């Protein structure tokens, strides 16, 4: 890539006021560095990824509303986690968490267990317990 070809589209890093470094060749064929504000091709795949993540969150929200899953699933998706990550943060086995994802089981959880989930998702026990599938956070 030539230095003059380093893309300067409006990218995601530029949102927080930073740019990315590229290595590119100047007119004499010497390698040099150039800063880039972003690249359209990356925005497209990035947007698509975000869209898929949002779909997962929306689906989880619907499922909580329909009473198919417990709020744990919604907050897991909202925090971009999966079963393994929730397991690592809470220190509980995956199968136990999957059990807690059932609304019936979830309703019987004590505050000590709920607190571990609340800490993991960075919310309060009340927010976790009272989540009914609303649009939020």
């Amino acid at each position, binding site marked *: 890539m030539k230095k003059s070809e380093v893309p300067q589209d409006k990218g995601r890093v530029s949102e927080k006021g930073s740019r990315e470094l590229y290595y590119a060749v100047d007119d004499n064929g010497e390698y040099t560095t150039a800063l880039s504000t972003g690249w359209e091709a990356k925005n497209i*795949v990035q947007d*698509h990824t975000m869209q898929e993540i949002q779909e997962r969150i929306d689906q989880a929200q619907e499922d909580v509303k329909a009473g198919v899953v417990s709020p744990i699933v919604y907050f897991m998706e909202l925090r*971009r986690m999966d079963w393994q990550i929730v397991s690592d943060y809470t220190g509980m086995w995956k199968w136990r968490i999957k059990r807690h994802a059932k609304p019936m089981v979830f309703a019987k959880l004590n505050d000590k267990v709920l607190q571990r989930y609340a800490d993991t998702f960075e919310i309060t026990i009340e927010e976790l317990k009272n989540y009914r599938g609303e649009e939020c956070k």
Partner: protein
Amino acid sequence: MQIDFEHRITAHCENGVASNLLRNKGLDISEPMVFGIGSGLFYVYLPFLKVNHAPGLSYRPAPGWIFNRLAKRLGIKIKRQKFSNPEKAQRVLDENLRNNIPAGLQVGVYHLPYFPEDYRFHFNAHNLVVYGKEGNEYLISDPTMETVHRLTEPELEKVRFAKGVLAPKGHIYYPIYIPQQIDWEKAITKAIKKTCNDMLAPVPIVGVKGMRMVSRAIRKWPTKVGVKKANYYLAQLVRMQEEIGTGGGGFRYIYSAFLQEAGKKINRPALLEMSDEMTKIGDLWRDFAVEASRVYKKRSNQTDVYNKLADDLLHLADLEEEFFKKLKKVI
């Protein structure tokens, strides 16, 4: 308390931390040299390992390997420590800062407040330098950022003790010894040979063979997992190749820059030619990313697009096989 430390933006975090820490210690070494001598160029496909709900793919070796290999080849000694106790981790860091030692830290990016929302995944192999502390705020030099940042004690603890795959466990590291004399020629030839062997490895998921395997997988994705999932997988593949850290083209440009700098340093004009060639290959990787991004624009025949991408990747694998065979010969 602030240590005299020069923040420089680099393309990749691990190279950047290594380069900035070594410069601070008086060894002037660029990011491409760190990357090249650390044999940073790699390719591995891990279909059985799902990362963010997509098959795993990496354009670099495991975290820490680049700096470790670099250290070994240059005779540098690095001190590394991990912790189970966050308080102890902070004590060691504070102690270091008091002794004027800037420290490299491995962190998770999900809780990094200065990261754009789009990049905040549970990815735990990010690296940054702490070079001072004011009140209860740490001064942070994150090499992928243009400017320096600050993190409070709880914020830093959170990212140092992020959980999940490759959990950092408070991992702190810094160079403690740099030799007076360095045999650059030996280090560079050894490093290049290693990269050639990696890329030509007779392992189906590694190097050019790995690329061919991915090419076969891409071709099947639309029918095997459906267009929706295929599009998501493809997006992750392109993100791994182009997103912050690789310097574009899946590290190919950084590697070209290395070949050029190394060729001049040890006076091997052949490496300069190889650098030109790698740049051209890097451009083709960029074209591949552009081609892939078209999938999301037009809704026409998806299978054709995936077939075209698979062909492009096969072509890249052929070019790189030829390239690394040649590189192995000239070195």
